[in-house]
């Protein structure tokens, strides 16, 4: 609307309910819907997987059997049993080993990138870490299957190379980039004033790092580790392909195991929609959702905690 057509009275001139105003309001509503969509989706995920799994939870689920026994025999015709303890043990052992591999290396890498490296070296390392994160999980699984498998058989003289060791190393390499990036952010967030004050007192670089920077960044570092655990816990394809996928309570790193995520991925295609087995797999999905939700929530609270103190 041209300005001349608008009413001339002073208060009305400030009241510009023209086309631009209407468009502005519409856009505000649209982007608000976009913003809220994330919440809608996360609730949707919970509602839909619960919707499919609920039949199993109400009709069949016995928590003591589900969480306390190791017999996962959903396809038995006589007496199907649904115990996920061995699957939990599989996920836990692989994730645990992955963290043993990934935590020292990714914290070390984060310290090097944040505190020592400068200029080109720093940029190159950051790019390499980013590329490490870009490799798809099915490719990691393939690496476990065709490169690590024969390597482990040769090196350790074991009959099968698809085991906790294989999946743990693969998962460690997969979780490392995200941990390195978040840990580096946490170290960068420590104010330079802390470092300068320590150096002014005569501390060397590594004394500054160990006595000042690491303690100051410990919450962020804890969050980094926690998110790495979440990543390992939820990883599907790589674990399915590298862990051997056999139900076991592992006693050594050379035992094959089966993970929660891998079980769902391997079996969902073979079940009839609405069957007990199908609903049991969704129940595992609900469990996975809740655990990762808790991990992410805790990590978020920890990070927020460090933020508010500064």
């Amino acid at each position, binding site marked *: 609307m041209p300005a001349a057509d608008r009413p001339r009275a002073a208060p009305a001139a400030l009241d510009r309910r023209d086309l631009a105003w209407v468009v502005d309001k519409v856009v505000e509503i649209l982007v608000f819907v976009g*913003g809220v969509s994330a*919440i809608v989706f996360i609730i949707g995920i919970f509602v839909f997987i619960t919707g499919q799994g609920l039949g199993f939870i109400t009709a069949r689920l016995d928590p003591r059997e589900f969480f306390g026994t190791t017999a996962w025999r959903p396809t038995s015709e006589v007496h199907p049993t649904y115990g996920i303890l061995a699957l939990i043990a599989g996920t836990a052992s692989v994730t645990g080993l992955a963290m043993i591999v990934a935590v020292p290396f990714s914290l*070390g890498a984060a310290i090097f990138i944040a505190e020592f490296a400068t200029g080109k070296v720093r940029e190159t390392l950051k790019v390499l870490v*980013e590329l490490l994160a*870009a490799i798809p999980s099915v490719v990691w699984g*393939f690496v476990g299957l065709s490169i690590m498998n024969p390597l482990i058989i040769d090196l350790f003289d074991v009959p099968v190379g698809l085991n906790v060791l294989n999946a743990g190393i693969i998962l460690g390499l997969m979780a490392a980039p995200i941990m390195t990036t978040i840990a580096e952010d946490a170290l960068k967030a420590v104010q330079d004033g802390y470092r300068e004050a320590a150096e002014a007192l005569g501390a060397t670089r590594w004394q500054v790092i160990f006595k000042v920077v690491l303690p100051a960044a410990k919450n962020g570092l804890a969050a980094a580790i926690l998110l790495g655990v979440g990543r390992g816990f*939820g990883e599907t394809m790589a674990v399915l392909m590298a862990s051997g996928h056999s139900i076991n309570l592992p006693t050594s790193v050379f035992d094959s195991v089966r993970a929660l995520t891998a079980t*769902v991925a391997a079996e969902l295609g073979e079940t009839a929609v609405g069957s007990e087995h199908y609903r049991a797999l969704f129940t595992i999905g609900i469990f996975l959702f809740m655990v990762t939700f808790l991990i992410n929530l805790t990590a978020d609270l920890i990070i927020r905690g460090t933020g508010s103190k500064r």
Partner: protein
Amino acid sequence: MFAPTSLNARNRRTQKLVKLLFLLMTLLLVLPVLMILGVLVARGGPMLSVEFLLTQPTKGMTAGGIFPALIGTVWLVAVALLVSVPVGVAAAVYLSEYAPENWLTRTINLAIINLAGVPSIVHALFGVGAFVLFFGFGTSILAASLTLAIMTLPVVIVATREALQAVPKAFREACWNMGATRWQTIRRVVLPNSISGILTGIILEVSRTAGETAPIMFTGAAFFLPFLPQSVFDQTMAMSLHLFVISTQVPGVPEGLPYGVALVLVLMVLAMNALSIGFRMWLRGRKKW
């Protein structure tokens, strides 16, 4: 006068050692990637040819090319982007330009973190429950792409929000002072100044979407289809699932074939990532404020 004491010398030695140790740890982290790439290139490289890219798999997927899988991945990524880009950019615009500091914004941020953190197989279950069954799309490109779109939404949101927030506040204030509405300011000033950053995020999302396997396994990707998809309601083959299938489900696959598929997949993904990184560096060099 300033001769180093033995303490100084010892400190310097320790410092050098510590630095070396951390460098070593960093290298041990990145070296495996380079080694893996090396092996993939060495064993998969001989497979690569125009024919490999442009022909059907034959003999029960033990020979031939990867054309339908390649085209299928393009379909899946394209449809997923059609959904996730508008929704993701809208969400980022809201969070960066409108959202007040309140519980709702905090909840949105928490939801975004969780969307990124929920296991991919749980996204797959959601896709089955919501898109395949509830909305009745069946196992189709549409169902698979929607699942992928929701899963990779955080990538777009986070990258776009960062790009928007990199535009100085003064730009907006100048525009508001001229009497522009919020949306006019965003469209004429904020978006043009951040569009390259947003593109970087979208390229990154393409890379993520192309590599995912679990979310499409039960929602729309098929083990083997002798024809190309004609619409979003068809099933399709996909590169990532094809690699899984020929390396675990099909007997008698010649050793080089899966390496060839893995190499093409990795090259696709890394090329996208390299493009995104290059774009970002070029931007940083060009920035005027």
